[in-house]
């Protein structure tokens, strides 16, 4: 079984190729079967692999061929399989399969049905390569591959140039991070002589000191890549715009899998990060800053998908926080549960959008509780998990993160408090969404409720979001063991109660309206804050002024090739001389003769300066 591991990414890839080549001739049914079936098959294989692994938890490596060999640089196309890989693969293929199934209904009427599934399958293949890669270069292949697929899928409806704009933004912003990561790869290879993750970490632990400069730089460069891909500060701006893609795409790529690649990368290379405590601290702070920033922003959004997008950014912030404080297992655990409930939420919103004439504004929805019951319950469960209400999956993972953050040296309580504030906000904005969309009076009438192809994934994900917290992920051998002692009990109680408080607040403000905040909101400070948060803390605006516009301007200024002016100058000088000579060609014979004579005189005068030609006395 283990030898067949390469089939897992290959099947979706082949399916993608077939779909692309046959997009014009394949019938719709076959397209759907291929698209969903290939990922289903991959999921099945993953499950078998997982069962085998759980029976005999021994990590293994499979090398297919040497990718390139130049001197001592010889990365292979090789896969590595351990508990972490298994978790990631399960999430990708499992959630991926459900989302594919959901898509068959969601994209039913789209003309580019085959193209859609081709891209989506290609994405799954690339994402699998990313998590299965044995060396960083192959990981980088998957990393860029998912980037391109994300670009293609965000800009799937290419006729609208706003979508293209969003897609390009997504790609370019993440590319900035990727470039940092590529530099990190260069540094790691130059210093450690290999890119194979296990060997590299081993070499680093021998050659580098804890707290040295090189591990710090290397980790920061890797962090750059992670920050870009996982939409963390300061490279998070692409994710809200990436919601331009079809909603299942947002569920798969921009919630469940691709955006957590950064988390995976850091977790995978945790051996390096342990050598650079400063880098870990930075990871934690980035996570904290991001989760708060995004939570405040999510509170103000009116577009259902943007709310979810900012909440994704915020939740990944939690994962970064977890990684930063060394709670590796908790981070990955939250990654998994988040994949369940966020995919659920996105798919739910997809169902709403699909049956509500592509309406995105939550204030134009309302009262959907009775009209779309499946969706309503999905949202209820998803939001509960998101808000980390007790007994849901999100509760278990987030609770672990907060508790371990509290125990972190020095600034632990600060991190814990920040996380707690985020949790409060999370509860408020997620239940604001629920109350506004599903309660109250109906503003738009839906066309119906979900069909079975939508319902099955929703219900499955509901179940997972509920019980996912009881899973035990097999990563005990991968990560170092966290310290066993628990913080004081009050910390735990506070952590549990804060989300409940948030739900209560949301209920009072948005449902029963007993708590009137209009006066705050309409005050000038409130208005300014509202606008500030709505615009995502003005970061987009700042980048636009600081980078985008200057780039346009510089490019526009250079457009007509200033360097050419230098060569133009040479040409101009030539032409001036040419002009003069042309002018001298009067065509008058006497003028020519006179100038010849003048030349003769000059030459003769010059010749007479040569001593040998000078007349000498007495020559005869």
């Amino acid at each position, binding site marked *: 079984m283990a030898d067949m591991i390469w089939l897992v990414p290959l099947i979706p890839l082949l399916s993608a190729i077939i779909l692309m080549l046959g997009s014009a001739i394949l019938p719709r049914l076959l397209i759907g079967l291929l698209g969903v079936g290939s990922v289903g098959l991959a999921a099945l294989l993953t499950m078998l692999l997982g069962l085998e692994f759980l029976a005999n938890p021994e990590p293994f490596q499979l090398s297919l061929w040497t990718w390139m060999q130049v001197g001592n640089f010889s990365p292979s196309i090789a896969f590595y399989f351990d508990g972490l890989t298994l978790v990631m693969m399960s999430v990708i293929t499992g959630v991926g399969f459900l989302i594919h199934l959901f898509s068959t209904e969601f994209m039913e009427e789209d003309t580019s049905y085959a193209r859609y599934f081709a891209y989506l399958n290609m994405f799954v293949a690339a994402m699998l390569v990313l998590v299965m890669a044995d060396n960083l270069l192959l990981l980088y292949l998957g990393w860029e591959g998912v980037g391109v697929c994300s670009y293609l899928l965000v800009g799937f409806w290419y006729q609208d140039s706003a979508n293209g704009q969003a897609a390009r933004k997504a790609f370019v912003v993440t590319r900035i991070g990727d470039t940092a990561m590529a530099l990190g790869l260069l540094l790691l290879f130059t210093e450690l002589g290999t890119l194979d993750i296990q060997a590299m970490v081993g070499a680093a632990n021998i050659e580098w000191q804890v707290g040295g400069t090189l591990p710090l730089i290397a980790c920061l460069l890797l962090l750059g890549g992670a920050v870009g891909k996982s939409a963390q500060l300061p490279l998070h701006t692409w994710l809200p715009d990436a919601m331009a893609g079809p909603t299942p795409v947002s569920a798969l790529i921009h919630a469940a899998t691709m955006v957590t690649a950064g988390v995976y990368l850091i977790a995978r290379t945790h051996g390096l990060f342990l050598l650079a405590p400063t880098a870990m601290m930075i990871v934690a702070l980035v996570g904290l800053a991001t989760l708060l920033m995004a939570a405040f922003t999510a509170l103000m959004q009116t577009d259902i998908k943007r709310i979810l997008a900012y909440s994704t950014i915020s939740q990944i912030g939690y994962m970064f926080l977890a990684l930063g404080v060394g709670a590796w297992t908790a981070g990955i655990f939250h990654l998994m549960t988040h994949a369940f409930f966020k995919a659920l939420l996105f798919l739910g919103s997809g169902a709403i959008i699909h049956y509500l004439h592509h309406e995105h504004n939550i204030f134009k929805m309302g009262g959907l509780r009775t009209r779309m019951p499946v969706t309503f319950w999905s949202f209820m469960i998803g939001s509960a998990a998101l808000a980390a209400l007790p007994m849901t999956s999100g509760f278990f993972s987030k609770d672990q993160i907060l508790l371990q953050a509290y125990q972190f040296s020095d600034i632990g309580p600060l991190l814990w408090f920040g996380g707690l504030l985020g949790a409060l906000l999370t509860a408020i904005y997620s239940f604001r969404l629920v109350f506004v969309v599903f309660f109250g009076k109906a503003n738009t009438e839906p066309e119906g409720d979900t069909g079975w192809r939508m319902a099955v994934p929703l219900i499955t994900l509901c179940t997972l979001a509920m019980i996912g917290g009881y899973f035990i992920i097999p990563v005990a051998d991968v990560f170092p063991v966290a310290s066993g002692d628990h913080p004081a009990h009050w910390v735990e109680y506070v952590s549990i109660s804060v989300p409940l408080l948030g739900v209560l607040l949301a209920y009072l403000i948005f449902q029963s309206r007993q708590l009137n905040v209009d006066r705050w909101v309409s005050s000038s400070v409130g208005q300014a804050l509202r606008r500030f948060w709505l615009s995502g803390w003005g970061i987009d605006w700042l980048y636009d002024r600081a980078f985008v516009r200057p780039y346009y301007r510089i490019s526009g200024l250079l457009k007509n090739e200033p360097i050419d002016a230098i060569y133009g100058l040479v040409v101009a000088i030539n032409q001036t001389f040419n002009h003069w000579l042309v002018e001298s060609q009067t065509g008058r014979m006497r003028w020519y003769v*006179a100038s010849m004579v003048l030349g003769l005189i000059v030459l003769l005068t010059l010749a007479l300066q040569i001593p040998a030609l000078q007349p000498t006395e007495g020559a005869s």
Partner: protein
Amino acid sequence: MEGLNIPLNHILLVSSLLFSIGMLGLMIRRNIIFILMSLEVMLNSAALAFVAAGAHWGQPDGQVIFMLILTVAAAEVAVGLGLVLQVQRRFKTLDMDSANRMRG
């Protein structure tokens, strides 16, 4: 021919004068026939200098060069006068400035 002592530099002086006069003619005249004549004068003056120099050393070389100059002059005049005929036919004038087509 005893006591023959014409100073060489006087002859060369005459030659130079002839050359300058010929050149002056070349520059001021516009009629193509006069231009050719001026050329003859200049060639002739050069020939004179050669012969004088040959005589100075008592060698025949000066006269040989004179003969070569003579052939050049003859060929040049033959072709030049042929051109004069063509110019006259085409432009109905011998004025080189009116007949110019060489303006760049």
